[in-house]
Structure formats: structure tokens, C-alpha cells
């Protein structure tokens, strides 16, 4: 479901008064709302009372020093923390008004709606074709081989990889270059037609040219998906995102329009970080 087809906008969830985050946490008609989210790894509290909304057709960048909990929060959104032994999530995360941690909800369904691209390109050790066809296969999205071919082709096209691989769809995906592998992973993710794409430092293993291609791609994909990207590069955040969230030691310090955050940060910590005074 995209924003156009939703008749009634999703109501904004109230944010508790205790929330210390600076800036506009909530957005109108949010796709995902997180309220007072905490994550514990065993006894250790990795993120604390995070409140944030994710808007449709927009790129949200998450920045912050290493170990501040960006990946942890990102993994909450598609419940990848479920697979980590000892991880526990509290608080509310709702997608279009329904709790994604609801016990009756199948996590498989959620992950088909929220795709993820990882820091290190991790194509399956199968052919390029099989990599992209895997998601549609397990979710039963294609009725026959023709339809599957169609999905694979469009996904590779949209990921900007088609011209490079169209002659070798049956070669192993692991034989591609790092940048191509990452675009293959993006193609694999969009093949199941998700609503949100989560990206955890998708360019950190890539050279500047491959990075630029992925950034262009993100900008194009924004038309159809909500995108959340974790990055260590302030320039990248400034280039690709419309909203930016700054994390610090497990706290969400500041959220706002990207332009505003980079030109006029309100919190001292945000300012220190983006001006390079903080590691």
C-alpha cells in the first residue's frame, strides 16, 4: 500500500512527555512509529526510550558514533533482533497502526514488507537469477516462470544492474564486484516489493564510484519506498536523506530535516558530531 491508496491517514501516536529528543519526532501519516523503544542485550541496555516516526517516500538517515545503537534500532524495525540470542525489545513499534511485535503476527510477513540491505554485501552462493528469484519464490509471488523472469528482470533494472549482468544471469552472484553485489542485494530486496528498505551502512565496503551509483539508486527508489539508512558518512547523509536522526550512546538526541540538522543543529552533541569535534 502506498500513500496515495490509503484513504484515511494513519493517526500520529502521542509522544510521552519524558522524551528528550530534540526536533520533530513525529510526522504526519507515518508508515512506522516507534515509541519508547528499548533494546537489551542480556543486562545491557543498548538503546533507551527511542521515539521516532518513519515517513513514506522519504529517506531517513541515522548517524552517530560507533556503538551508539544505530544498527540495533534498525534491526528492531524488521525484528531481526529476534534472531539474536538474549536480545529483548520493549516499547511499541507499529506499522500502519498495528503493532509489529504482536505475538499473533508472523515475522515472515513483516520481513516481506520491510526489506534489509546489509553492511557487507551478502548475496546467496547461488546464481544471480536465483538470488533475485529467491524472495518471490518463498513468498509465492510469481504464478509461473514467465512472471518470475519478469520480476527478476525489473528488479535488476531498477537496481541498475541489468546491463552489467543480463548476459550472465546463471553465473554465481558471489562472482560480482563488491558494488555489483550490493546492488544485487538491493535487487533481491525490491523483488518482493517491500514498503520499507532498511540499509545498514550499505556503502562502507565500496569505492566512491560504486557508492555514488548506490546513492543515485537510493534517490530513485525513494519514489516507491520508505528508506532508512545508517551511515558513517555525513556527506552521504546530507546527499541522500530528507530527514536525519542523530544517536548518541543509545539515546536518540536529535531528529529533523536533513538541511536543518546540518546547517543549524540545536543540540550541543549533534553540533559537536557534525562539526567533527566528536569521534
Amino acid at each position, binding site marked *: 500500500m502506498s500513500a496515495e491508496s490509503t484513504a484515511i491517514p494513519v493517526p500520529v501516536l502521542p509522544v510521552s512527555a519524558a522524551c528528550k529528543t530534540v526536533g520533530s519526532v513525529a510526522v504526519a501519516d507515518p508508515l512506522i512509529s516507534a515509541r519508547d523503544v528499548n533494546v537489551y542485550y542480556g543486562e545491557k541496555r543498548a538503546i533507551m526510550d527511542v521515539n521516532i516516526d518513519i515517513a513514506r517516500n522519504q529517506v531517513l538517515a541515522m548517524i552517530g558514533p560507533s556503538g551508539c545503537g544505530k544498527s540495533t534500532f534498525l534491526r528492531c524495525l*524488521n525484528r*531481526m533482533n529476534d*534472531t539474536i*540470542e538474549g536480545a529483548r525489545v520493549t516499547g511499541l513499534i507499529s506499522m500502519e497502526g498495528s503493532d509489529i511485535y504482536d505475538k499473533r503476527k508472523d515475522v*515472515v*510477513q*513483516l*520481513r*516481506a514488507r520491510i*526489506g*534489509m540491505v*546489509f553492511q*557487507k554485501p*551478502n*548475496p*546467496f*552462493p547461488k546464481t544471480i537469477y536465483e538470488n533475485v528469484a*529467491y*524472495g518471490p519464490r*518463498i*513468498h509465492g509471488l510469481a504464478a509461473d516462470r514467465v512472471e518470475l523472469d519478469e520480476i527478476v528482470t525489473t528488479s535488476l533494472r531498477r537496481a541498475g544492474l541489468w546491463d552489467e549482468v543480463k548476459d550472465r544471469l546463471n553465473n*554465481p552472484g*558471489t562472482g560480482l564486484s563488491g558494488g555489483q553485489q550490493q546492488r544485487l*542485494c538491493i535487487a*533481491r*530486496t525490491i523483488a*518482493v516489493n517491500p514498503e520499507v528498505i532498511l540499509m545498514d551502512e550499505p556503502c562502507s565496503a565500496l569505492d566512491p564510484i560504486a557508492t555514488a551509483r548506490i546513492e543515485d539508486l537510493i534517490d530513485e527508489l525513494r519514489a516507491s519506498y520508505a528508506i532508512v539508512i545508517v551511515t558513517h558518512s555525513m556527506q552521504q547523509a546530507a546527499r541522500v536523506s530528507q530527514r536525519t536522526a542523530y544517536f548518541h550512546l543509545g539515546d536518540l538526541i536529535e531528529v529533523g530535516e536533513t538541511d536543518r540538522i546540518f546547517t543549524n543543529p540545536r543540540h550541543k552533541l549533534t553540533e559537536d558530531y557534525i562539526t567533527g569535534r566528536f569521534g
Partner: protein
Amino acid sequence: MSSRTAADTRLLVEKSLRRRAWAERRFRAYGLGAVLLGVVFVFFLFASIISKGYTAFLQARVTLDIFYDPAAIDPEGTRQAETLAMANYSALVRAALREKFPEIEGNARRRALYALVSSSAAFELQHRVQADPSLLGQRQRLSFLAAANVDQLLKGKIDRRLPEANRVLTDQQIACADKLVNDGQLKLRFNSAFFTGGDSREPEQAGVWGAVVGSMYTLAVTLLLSFPIGVAAAIYLEEFAPRNRWTDLIEVNINNLAAVPSIVFGLLGLAMFLNFFGMPRSAPLVGGFVLTLLTLPTIIIASRAALKAVPPSIREAAFGMGASRLQMVGHHVLPLAMPGILTGTIIGMARALGETAPLLMIGMVAFIVNVPRSLADPATVLPVQIYLWADSSERAFLERTSAAIIVLLAFLIVMNAAAVILRNRFERRW
């Protein structure tokens, strides 16, 4: 520290460099020595077994002119099956021998002559006549197994210079054998019976096929049980089970089981499968059960290690695409772990193939002539057959022991080759 000049540092590094290079060379020499020692031992092992065993692949056979004398077999001419079954066929063999050596007279001397041909000759004639009674009254030139001692004589294993009393063959017997050899009627031929027959009290008739089939049945049961159970257990423990005190306990127990002496599993099998469930004694089915207990820990441990070695990024990728846990394992992790799992399985199966002790406990040590036809038939296995033959006093069994070891090794090599081929088909990079 900072007072050291660059030249000093270089000198120090150079000194340590020489030491390191020397240590490295020394280590290489040790390694090479170890490998050479291993190769030499393997070479000696193979050389000694093959040199002792290859003669068993040849067997002396005597060619005789047989007259199917109706007077000796069916004097009344009824041709009834019962008469044909009860008749004294060795008389035909004896007559043929007397015909060949008319000069030998006297009961004792004749008995010595008859002893040159294996007792299996009479059975062979019986089979022929029963299959085709019209043979009666005809003549046929047939080849029979020679007695084990004649076989040994032809293979040069009986010393002719020994005084007659110390030999298993008399002077007269040796003379007769020589005459048969000269006339082209006694020759070493390829011993196909060794590869098609079961065990026998007579060394010249003893074959290894019964034990090979027994081993195949037993290992088939073992593989069919231990592979799926072991892999399923490993997958459950590695991918599904929560890490807690119970899974720790199970893990410790599996590791301990891998170290339990095999005879203990034999005792367990005896108590459980034979005494409690009343399964048949000496059966490959029960042997397979017992060997399954033995190989399971090996397969589980190897499979878990193989599953652990699959990079977590593959699991993340599968989960991220919305695969369920079972799909994640079945589509991605298991295919990648398969080469390692197969290696573990083959190690377990090789161990099972060579096991003797636990099978002795469930009665697979019995003397069994027939080649087993089913999983419940009494059977023995190759290592037990080797043990039985090695234990027997007759000289002719000696070469058969070595020959059976060669067959066992060949079995092992075929099994390993199959596993390597399978593994290469699964091998993929990531």
C-alpha cells in the same frame, strides 16, 4: 628505547630474522619427516598385505574326464529326483582319478590320490546331473577345485625338500600333482569363487562374498539411520535449540558418547535389541542398529562443526528476505554445510566398516556359509571374517586373510571415492 639508532634496530632485526628463518626451516624438516614416515608405514602395510594376499586370487584347478556312470548314480534307471539327490557323486570323481592313474593301487594309496581333489567336486557333479539328468551315460571334461594342499604346492608354499613325514603331502601325491601339471590338467586359474562364495571349512572353497554382502547390508542400515538422524539432530541443536543448561548437557553427552569404547555399544545392542526387543541374532539389521549408535556421535559432531562454519551473513540474508528458519536452513545453510557433513559421515561409516567388537556381542561372529539374502538372515561382516580366518590353523587360510583385508581396503576406497565425488558436487564457494 629512543636512544637506539636506526642502524642498531636494523642489526637487531637481522639477528632475529636469522633465528626465525632457522626455526622455520627446522619446522619444515620435522613436517616432511613426519609425512615421509607415514608414507613409509603405509607403503609397508600395503606391500606386506598385497604380497601375502594376492595368491588367494588364484586357485589351483584340476581338469578330469568324468564319465557320468549310470550304474554308480542311478542303477535302477528310475531317474527320480530323490535317487539323483542321494547318489554318491564322489565315486565319479574317484573313477576319473583311477582312470588317470591306473598304476596306483591299494586302499591307502588310492585314498591319498583322491585327496588331491576338493570335496566340492562331488557337489558340482550333483548340481550338474540334477539340472540335466540326460547327462547320465555321457562323458565330459570338467575342471574342479584342487585340494587346498595341492593349491599351496603349486603356489610354492610347500617345501618339497622336507622329509615326507613333515609334509602335508606325501611323495606319491606330489608325483601325481606333477604329472597332472605336466599333462596340463592342473593349473592356477583366476579364483572367481573367492569373490562369489560364502565362508567354508575347506579353505579352497572359502569365499569373501558372504562377508561383503553382510557388510553392505549392515552399512546400508547404518547409513540410512545415522545420516538422517545425525544431521537432523545437528541441525536442531545448532539452528533451532535455545542455548541453555539442557542443550549444554546434551552437547557434553554427545561428545562423551563419541569416546565410548565400541564394545560397550555391542553390550547395549545385546541387551536392548536382542534380549529386550527379541530381534534375530547375527542379523545385519541389528548390526546396523548397533553401528548406528556408534556412528551417530561422530556424524552429529562433524555436522555441527560444518553448520557452525557457514558464515552468519548467509543466515542474516535469508532471514532478511523473510525466509522461515526451516527455509533458511534447508535452502542455504544445509547445502553449504553438506561437504563437511559428508566428510563426517564418511569418517563415521569408515569406522563402522572396520568395527568388530560390538558385532561379536550380537552374534555376527558365527560361521555362516550362505550369502545373506535379507537384512534378517544370519551374516557376518568383513572384519569379523578376517578375524575368523586369521584365527584358523590351516595354512591356506593365511593368504585368504590377507586377501580379505585387500577386499576390505578396496571396499573402503570405493566408499571414500563415492563420498569425495558427492562432496565435490556439493562444494560451492561463498
